[in-house]
C-alpha cells in the first residue's frame, strides 16, 4: 500500500469531526454513531495497511542498508516567518509513528464500537449529545494521529494543544455535572501550564539549532545531527547547559500530558468523562503523548545525561507513588487511572535509563534497549489498559456506580467481562505469556542495566502493580455475593460492548509476541534481545507474590483488609487521599497564588489601570457636557453663527490680502 494513504488516515477522522459536528442534530443519533464507527473502521484498515507496509514491505525507501528510515510522505510549508524559520505541516512515518498509527486507530475503533452500546440508556436508546460525542471522538483521533506523524516539533506542539482541547471537550461531555466541568477545567489548565514549558523548550531548542524539523534535529536512524547542535552545547545557564534546559522544559510539557508527578493531578479527575473516553484518552493514547515526545527526541536526550536523570527520577518516583495510591482507591476508574499513571511512568523511566545501558551493548548487541522496551510497553499497555477501562465501563453500565462496594461477586453475572478483565490484569501484572510480561521484562532488564537499585525499585513497583490490579479484580468480581441495587440483575452487555472486549483481550494475549525489537528501535537497526531469565524469573515471582497476597486478602469476604487498614490507618488515609497532592495544589493556588499574587494584581488592574481609563473617560464626558449646549436645536441660531463665522473669515482673508 503506498504511503500516501497515510494522508487519508489523518484526514478521515477530521472529515468525520466536521461532518458529524456540523450536521449535529440533523443526523439521527444512531446514524451518527454508525457513520463515525464505519469511518473509523476504514481509517483503521488504512492505518494497518500503511503500518504493515512500513514494517514489512519493501521498495518505498523504508529500509536502506538494514536501517529503517523516516519516510516523509507530505511536508508543505505552512508558516514562513523568515527564510530560516519555516514551520511545516506534514506527515512522516518512522517506526514509532507507524506503531502509534496502529495503536491509536485500534483503540479508537474499539472505543467507537463500544460507545454505540455504552452511550445508551438501559432501553438501548442513544443518549442526548450522541452526535457531539462522536464528532469529538473524531477530533481527538485526528489530533492524536496528526501528533504522531508530525514532521517537526512545532506541529507536535499544535497537535498537543488540539489533543488537550479534545480531551477538555470529552471530559466535560456531561456539562451539566459540576464535577465534570471542574475536572475538564482542571485537566485543561494543568496540561496547558505544562505546555507553556514545552513551548519555552521549543523556542530555546529552535533558537540554537535554527530548525524545527525532526529530520535535521535528530536525523534518520536516530543519529543526532551534532553539527546543528554544536552551538547549543556551548552555552550554559545557571551552570546547566542550555540544551539540558530546553530538553527538560520539553519533558515538562510531556510530563503534563503523561501525568507525571507532580503534574498528575488532572488524570484521576478526568475520570468524570464517559468511560470509553477514559479508555481512549486517559489510558491508551493521549497520556502516552508525553512518552512519545521524549521518544521522538530521544537522540537529543541521549546527549544530555542531566535531562535524562531528571526524567528517570521523576518516572521512578511517579511509578511507585501512583501504584501506592492505586492500592487504596475504592472507585474502580480512579484505581485504573492511578495504574495508568504508574505504567506511563514505567515507560518514561525505561526511556530515561536507556541512555546509559552501555553494559547491555555487549549482552544484547545494540543500544537503546530501554527505548525499545518503552515503545513496546506503550503498545501493549495501550491494548490491555483500553481493555481494562472498557471492562470497567461495562461493569459501571451494569451496576450504575463507580464504587467497588456496589459491585462484589459479579463473576457469576458477567462472565465474559470477568474473564476479559482477568486477562487485562494478568497482562498488566506481567504474567507470561500475556502482553505485559514481555514489555515489562525488557523494561526491567534496561533498569537493571542502569543500576541494581533502579532494577529492584521497578521490580517492586511491578509487584505492587500485580497486587493492586488483583485487589481491584477480586473486589469487583468476588469477595462476596452480589447485592443487587438496581432493577435489573447485572449481566454482560450488548454485543457492541462485548465484542471490543473480546478483541482487545485477544490482542492482550498475543501482543507480547510482536517482534518489537526488530521494529521499533532508536537507531532503526534490529535489536537482538533474549529473555534474561534472572530478571524475568524474579519479576514473575514478585508479580505472583503480589497476586497471591491480593488473593489471600480479597478473594473471600474477611476482616483482614480492615485490620490492616486500622493498623496503618495514617498511611492508608494518606494514600487514599492521594498523599494530599490535590490539597497541596489547592493550598498553593488558592492561598498562596490567589491571595498573594492574584489579588494585588487584580487590585492594580482594577484601581490603577481601569482607574486611568475611567479618568480619561470622565474627563472627556465632562468636556463634552460643557460644549453640548452649543447644539441648541434652534436652526436660526446655527445660521447666525455660520454667517458670523463666514463674515469673520472673509474679513480676515481680505485683511490678509490687503496687508
Amino acid at each position, binding site marked *: 500500500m503506498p504511503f500516501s494513504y497515510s494522508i487519508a488516515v489523518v484526514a478521515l477522522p477530521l472529515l468525520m469531526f466536521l461532518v458529524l459536528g456540523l450536521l449535529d442534530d440533523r443526523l439521527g443519533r444512531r446514524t451518527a454513531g454508525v457513520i463515525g464507527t464505519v469511518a473509523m473502521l476504514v481509517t483503521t484498515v488504512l492505518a494497518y495497511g500503511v503500518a504493515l507496509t512500513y514494517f514489512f514491505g519493501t521498495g518505498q525507501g523504508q529500509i536502506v542498508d538494514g536501517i529503517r528510515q523516516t519516510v516523509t510522505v507530505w511536508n508543505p510549508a505552512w508558516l514562513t516567518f523568515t527564510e530560516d524559520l519555516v514551520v511545516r505541516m506534514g506527515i512522516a512515518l518512522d517506526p514509532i509513528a507507524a506503531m502509534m498509527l496502529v495503536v491509536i486507530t485500534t483503540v479508537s475503533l474499539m472505543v467507537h464500537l463500544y460507545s454505540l452500546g455504552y452511550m445508551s440508556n438501559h432501553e438501548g436508546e442513544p443518549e442526548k449529545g450522541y452526535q457531539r460525542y462522536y464528532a469529538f471522538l473524531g477530533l481527538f483521533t485526528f489530533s492524536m494521529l496528526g501528533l504522531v506523524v508530525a514532521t517537526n516539533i512545532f506541529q507536535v506542539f499544535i497537535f498537543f494543544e488540539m489533543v488537550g482541547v479534545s480531551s477538555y471537550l470529552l471530559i466535560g461531555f456531561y456539562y451539566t455535572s459540576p464535577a465534570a466541568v471542574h475536572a475538564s477545567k482542571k485537566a485543561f489548565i494543568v496540561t496547558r501550564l505544562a505546555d507553556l514549558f514545552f513551548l519555552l523548550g521549543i523556542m530555546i531548542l529552535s533558537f540554537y539549532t535554527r530548525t524545527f524539523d525532526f529530520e535535521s534535529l535528530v536525523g534518520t536512524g536516530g543519529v543526532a545531527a551534532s553539527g546543528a547542535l554544536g552551538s547549543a552545547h556551548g552555552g550554559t545557564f545557571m551552570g546547566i547547559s542550555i540544551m539540558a534546559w530546553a530538553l527538560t522544559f520539553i519533558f515538562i510539557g510531556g510530563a503534563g500530558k503523561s501525568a507525571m508527578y507532580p503534574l498528575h493531578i488532572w488524570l484521576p479527575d478526568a475520570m468524570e468523562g464517559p468511560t470509553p473516553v477514559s479508555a481512549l484518552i486517559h489510558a491508551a493514547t493521549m497520556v502516552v503523548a508525553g512518552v512519545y515526545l521524549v521518544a521522538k527526541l530521544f537522540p537529543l536526550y541521549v546527549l544530555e545525561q542531566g535531562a535524562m536523570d531528571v526524567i528517570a527520577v521523576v518516572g521512578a518516583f511517579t511509578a511507585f507513588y501512583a501504584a501506592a495510591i492505586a492500592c487504596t482507591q475504592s472507585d474502580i476508574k480512579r484505581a485504573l487511572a492511578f495504574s495508568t499513571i504508574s505504567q506511563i511512568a514505567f515507560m518514561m523511566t525505561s526511556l530515561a535509563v536507556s541512555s546509559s545501558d552501555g553494559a547491555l551493548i555487549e549482552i544484547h548487541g545494540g543500544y537503546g534497549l530501554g527505548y525499545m522496551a518503552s515503545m513496546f510497553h506503550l503498545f501493549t499497555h495501550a491494548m490491555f489498559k483500553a481493555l481494562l477501562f472498557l471492562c470497567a465501563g461495562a461493569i459501571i453500565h451494569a451496576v450504575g456506580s463507580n464504587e467497588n462496594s456496589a459491585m462484589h461477586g459479579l463473576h457469576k453475572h458477567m462472565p465474559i467481562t470477568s474473564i476479559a478483565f482477568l486477562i487485562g490484569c494478568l497482562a498488566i501484572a506481567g504474567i507470561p505469556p500475556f502482553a505485559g510480561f514481555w514489555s515489562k521484562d525488557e523494561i526491567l532488564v534496561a533498569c537493571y542495566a542502569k543500576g541494581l537499585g533502579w532494577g529492584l525499585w521497578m521490580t517492586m513497583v511491578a509487584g505492587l502493580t500485580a497486587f493492586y490490579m488483583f485487589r481491584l479484580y477480586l473486589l469487583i468480581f468476588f469477595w462476596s455475593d452480589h447485592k443487587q441495587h438496581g432493577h435489573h440483575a447485572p449481566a454482560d452487555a450488548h454485543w457492541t460492548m462485548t465484542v471490543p472486549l473480546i478483541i482487545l483481550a485477544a490482542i492482550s494475549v498475543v501482543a507480547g509476541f510482536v517482534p518489537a525489537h526488530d521494529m521499533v528501535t532508536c537507531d532503526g537497526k534490529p535489536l537482538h534481545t533474549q529473555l534474561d531469565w534472572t530478571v524475568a524469573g524474579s519479576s514473575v515471582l514478585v508479580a505472583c507474590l503480589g497476586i497471591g497476597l491480593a488473593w489471600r486478602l480479597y478473594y473471600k469476604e474477611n476482616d483482614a483488609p480492615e485490620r490492616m487498614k486500622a493498623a496503618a490507618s495514617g498511611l492508608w488515609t494518606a494514600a487514599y487521599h492521594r498523599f494530599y497532592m490535590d490539597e497541596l495544589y489547592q493550598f498553593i493556588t488558592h492561598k498562596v497564588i490567589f491571595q498573594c499574587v492574584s489579588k494585588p494584581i487584580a487590585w492594580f488592574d482594577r484601581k490603577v489601570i481601569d482607574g486611568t481609563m475611567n479618568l480619561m473617560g470622565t474627563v472627556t464626558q465632562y468636556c463634552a457636557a460643557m460644549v453640548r449646549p452649543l447644539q441648541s*436645536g434652534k436652526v*436660526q441660531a446655527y445660521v447666525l453663527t455660520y*454667517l458670523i463665522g463666514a463674515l469673520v473669515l472673509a474679513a480676515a482673508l481680505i485683511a490678509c490680502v490687503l496687508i
Partner: protein
Amino acid sequence: MELNVLMYLVPAIVMFGCGVYGFLTRKNMIAIMISLELMLNAVDINFVVFNRYLFPGQMEGMMFTLFAIAIAAAETALALAIIINVFRAVRNVDISEISKLKF
C-alpha cells in the same frame, strides 16, 4: 442708457441681504423657505451676470443657473414636504417652537 454690471449686482446683493435677514428673523417656516429662495435667486443672477460680462463667449454660468433652478425646485418640494410633515406632527410651523433636534 448702457447697463453695466453694477446695475445687476446691486439688486442681487440687496435680494441676498433680504433673504439672509428673512431667514434669520422670520418664525414661520414657509417664510424662511421663501427667504431661502430669494438667496438662491440672487446667486443665480450673479452667475448669469458674471457669465455675460466676464466670459461672454461661454455658457457655463447659464447652464449652472438652469441647473440650480432645477435643483431649487426639487429642494423646495422636499422642504415643503418636510414642513407639512412637521406640521402634522406638532400642529405648528413656528421654527422657534421646534428645537428638539439636538443631542
